[in-house]
């Protein structure tokens, strides 16, 4: 897997069946998916390794990701099928402002849904 934002994280894998726009789709206060059209509406991503195809929708997703990381409701790490600069900058700013590391990798871990995995090099 290629690191977009390097770092280590451990968490339960949740594979999103569809891409999620953090803005309008995720509530950073409660930590739940609020996009009513999303198949995993109502699930939490807090502390999980989130696997999704790519980012989606509004370019405000970076703010919402950074805010979720500030509040502790963000994912522990992200694994994407393809690079997404909107999510990468959200993670980098959370690290810059609050020292919270949310590594982002490009790769495949789809078979691991529900398992706890460790992301990043030891």
């Amino acid at each position, binding site marked *: 897997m290629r690191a977009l934002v390097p770092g280590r994280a451990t968490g339960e894998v949740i594979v999103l069946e569809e891409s999620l726009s953090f803005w309008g789709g995720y509530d*950073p206060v409660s930590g739940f998916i609020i996009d009513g059209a999303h198949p995993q509406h109502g699930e939490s991503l807090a502390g999980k390794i989130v696997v999704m195809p790519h980012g989606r929708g509004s*370019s405000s997703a970076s*703010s919402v990701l950074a805010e979720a990381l500030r509040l502790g409701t963000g994912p522990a790490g992200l694994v994407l099928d393809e690079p997404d600069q909107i999510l*990468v*900058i959200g993670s980098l700013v959370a690290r810059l402002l609050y020292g919270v590391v949310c590594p982002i990798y490009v790769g495949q871990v789809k078979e691991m849904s529900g398992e706890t995995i460790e992301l990043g090099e030891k």
Partner: protein
Amino acid sequence: MTAGMRLDEADRATLAGEAGDARRIAMELLVAVGETIGAPSLLDISSAHIDGCLYHGLAGLDFARKLAAAGGSVSVPTTLNVSSLDLLHPDLVRADPEDAERSRAQMQAYESMGCRPTWTCAPYQLPDRPRLGEQIAWGESNAIVFANSVLGARTNRYGDFLDICCALTGRAPAAGLHTDEGRRATVLVDVTVPDAWRDEELFYVGLGYVLGAIAGTAVAVIVGLDQRADEDRLRALGATAASSGAVGLFHVAGVTPEAPTAEQALGGEPPEKVVRVGAHEVETALARLGSSSESLGAVSVGTPHASLGEVESLAEMCAGRKTRVPFFVNTSRDVLDRAETSGAAGKVRGFGATFVTDTCTYITPIIGEVGGSVMTNSGKWAYYAPGNLGFEVVMGSLADCVESAVRGVAVFTGPFA
């Protein structure tokens, strides 16, 4: 950290802090992002549009304050997106006082860095919009897709934070939609629908929803449209596609500037994917966007911000009539100013409608308790309002919105019901 990217002397000086702390931070972030997306270098941009001025929580305010406190000032002309306050009509917004205070502080931080207080999600409606081939760094998904597709300017999908980094440095990673290769269509969308649909604004909304689902982040060329796909209709198409997918650019053969033909948009290569879209797909998309059958509680139009043409159409449709439900028209202060001069704004107010500027009814609490669903002509509003605000949505054309408001129940004048 710059192993993968070739930086010029000025970039390296900025990175070393010679242009001040704010530009150093901005350059560090730009380089990190440029490397993740495989950009070989940075390129000059001629304008920026900042989405990050909208308050989503302390993280956005903390970042703006950090850059402003570090002496940040933009190095290219920079416009500002909507905020969560309506400065011209402050009583409209029912925001929590603490959030309102923080929103204002975030707006001020961006203004203090030299950004223009335009407060609109439709900067392409302002004078001096970017031209074909111009390199820019824009945030706000509907503005990005419009600038790329309709104007032929070149921007990647810049998010909050990255937009101000580009504005501060005047640079952007030379990758993706900034490059010829990144702008080449790889998906062909072949549209076959009843000819009269091409005169219906809702057709473009439905097609946009389908396009977003088909294309994801890929660039598509649409065949089967004609000159009736005017700017406002392409805008509706793009705004919806950028909501249901991550579409930053689409071409329309024979209509948009980089697609005289589908073959040219495809760069002479065969498409990787061909998708046929017919009446059924468009109708299904519209039904998914607006499924409510509740009674009508309110109407909201102008997402993205209504153009002067749309405000004038609305003024004609509502002449001598009265709305029975709260009716909101979102637009920019610049367009509202021009609509005041033309007289259209007065007619819209005479109908009983309320103008909302600087912000939008789906990002901030303006529409209060409503006794029923909210009708909109906007695919983007329909996509986000249920999650953001909990409203049931019903999709209608601008004409449907006016008819429904007058009668107090949802009515449909066109082929989509």
